[in-house]
């Protein structure tokens, strides 16, 4: 981790539309200086007198040294909180907590990395690409989404990556289909040593399956509905297999959002697997008997 998280009131520096998304750059030195790729922030939404009591989790897209340190995030409007964020303007203030979560682990050696992003999930990959390239890793991108205007960061990926492969489900940009359709080809072509992925759960599952097929590690950054983002509420859990082989319901926010793909029991997300530690009826190896 990059030091303990901060709660800061940041001023919005710029806002811009990027296809289907809204990008906000916020002055937040305390967060920017602690940021490592894969971290996220949580944002208070709704302003004074709001009825919304929980923060919204957002990946950090970019960190810049301007004004002591800025963070940028990319927002897809889903419900009332993200709609409110999309309405922010320069000079508005935002209450941020971050950086949160465990960042992506970086390889020691200069290896070949394929970075896979789905929808706004790509946003988190660019700081990662920079860090990898600073370690002399090769970076190739595979980005996908439902339609062209939802593929985030294609231009930047083309600039930064050795190659960039794009997919859309409706065929409006790049290849028609899903990232997992093209990923095996890319992995083969670039002799990938590791895959990093961020995007919807279904995509992460498919990407992980590709990694398993090729026997290369996959680091996934997952997304789960979060009430606190700091590890205290236990609402964001998913079943993950630990080093000891035991499945535990771990927190996406504090134990993740980055996990080894093959450790995440994607098929069982949204359930308590019967063999998870503490599952009803006595799952897991550590069941306590009185």
């Amino acid at each position, binding site marked *: 981790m990059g030091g303990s998280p901060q709660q800061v009131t940041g001023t919005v520096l710029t806002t811009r539309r990027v296809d289907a998304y809204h990008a906000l750059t916020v002055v937040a030195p305390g967060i920017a200086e602690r940021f490592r790729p894969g971290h996220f922030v949580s944002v208070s939404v709704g302003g004074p007198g709001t009825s919304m009591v929980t923060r919204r989790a957002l990946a950090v897209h970019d960190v810049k040294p301007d004004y002591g340190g800025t963070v940028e995030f990319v927002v897809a409007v889903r419900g009332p909180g993200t709609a409110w964020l999309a309405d922010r303007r320069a000079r508005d203030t935002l209450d941020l907590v971050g950086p949160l979560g465990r960042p992506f682990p970086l390889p020691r050696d200069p290896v070949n990395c394929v970075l896979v992003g789905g929808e706004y999930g790509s946003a988190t990959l660019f700081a990662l690409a920079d860090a990898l390239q600073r370690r002399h890793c090769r970076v190739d991108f595979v980005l996908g989404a439902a339609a062209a205007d939802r593929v985030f960061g294609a231009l930047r990926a083309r600039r930064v990556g050795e190659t960039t492969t794009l997919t859309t489900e409706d065929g409006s940009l790049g290849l028609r289909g899903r990232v997992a359709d093209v990923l095996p080809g890319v992995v083969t072509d670039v002799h990938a040593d590791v895959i990093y992925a961020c995007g919807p759960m279904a995509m992460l599952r498919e990407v992980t399956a590709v990694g398993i097929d090729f026997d290369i590690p996959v680091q996934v950054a997952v997304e789960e509905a979060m009430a606190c983002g700091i590890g205290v509420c236990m609402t964001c859990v998913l079943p993950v297999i630990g080093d000891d082989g035991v499945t535990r319901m771990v927190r996406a926010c504090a134990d993740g959002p980055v996990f080894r793909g093959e450790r995440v029991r994607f098929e069982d997300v949204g359930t308590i697997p019967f063999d998870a530690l503490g599952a009803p009826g006595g799952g897991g190896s550590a069941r306590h008997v*009185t």
Partner: protein
Amino acid sequence: MSLDVPAVDMRTYLAHVELANPVTTAAGCAGTGRELSQFFDLGRLGAHTTRTITMAPRAGRPTPRMTETPSGLLNAVGLQGPGIEAFLGRELPWLAQRSIRTVVSIGGGSVAEYTALARRLADAPGVTAIEVNLACPNIEDRGRVFARDGAASAEVVASVRSVTRYDVPVVAKLSPDVTDVVAVARACVDGGADALSMINNPLGVCIDVDTLRPALAAVSGGLSGPAVRPLAVRCVWQVHAALPGVPIVGVGGVMTGRDAFELILAGACAVAVGTALFHDPLAAVRILKELEDALAARGFQRLADAVGLAHRPPGSGSRHLEESSL
């Protein structure tokens, strides 16, 4: 504190245990303590309340476990936790080493399980009080929640009390989803509860109108946050009016020092902060400061002088709450 605001004596008592101030974390809302201590020194609070500890480890409920509601949060975590052994091995010592006043919340499916938990805690160092989370289904009564039945609640409390060291108060945590919260409170006190904590979450349901299904995997969940504050203040008011000598920990929708003050004026001598911690990791210390300022601004020298004050208007007797607004 600024120089022109006189210091307020914020000490309070949970039965015979003195707390430096009345603000505590609410059970299940402050993790192991380690998470919040990234943001501030937990020792600054009156006490830290643990999540509800169960005998065996619990994986909790499937996700989705939360949904936002107007000024509230609906959750069904299902008491996910490590079980008492891991708690005693890893969590409590961490708190004890830092001299953090710790209220240990316990939950079980039978009187025997609560009792066994209390026994395991009896010789553990660092237990300031035991909070009995009565919002657990009684497996011996077809899953009926203890808190909904005064007699069952009293039985749990009495049994926990009997195996707990005399200098460790037993706090009974009550649910608002009952016909007569005073009756349950009285039963618990008669059963030996040294203090009461209220309210646990009322039960709610949300339906997702897009999936056409309940928003939570568990269907129902506990409602928390500012939406429930009027219910919490009402329960504290009713119970304080009926049992004025019993210490009450007020819980429910406290987001600011004013909210904490409301519960104190209604009769709480301590206030627990839950959902606010999710929004604002520093909520508990901020609320403590705001409460102290609010008391000072109104000329209070001691927190104790404000406890239950709204019951006693100058120059008139205590007002009784009527059962209905009719």
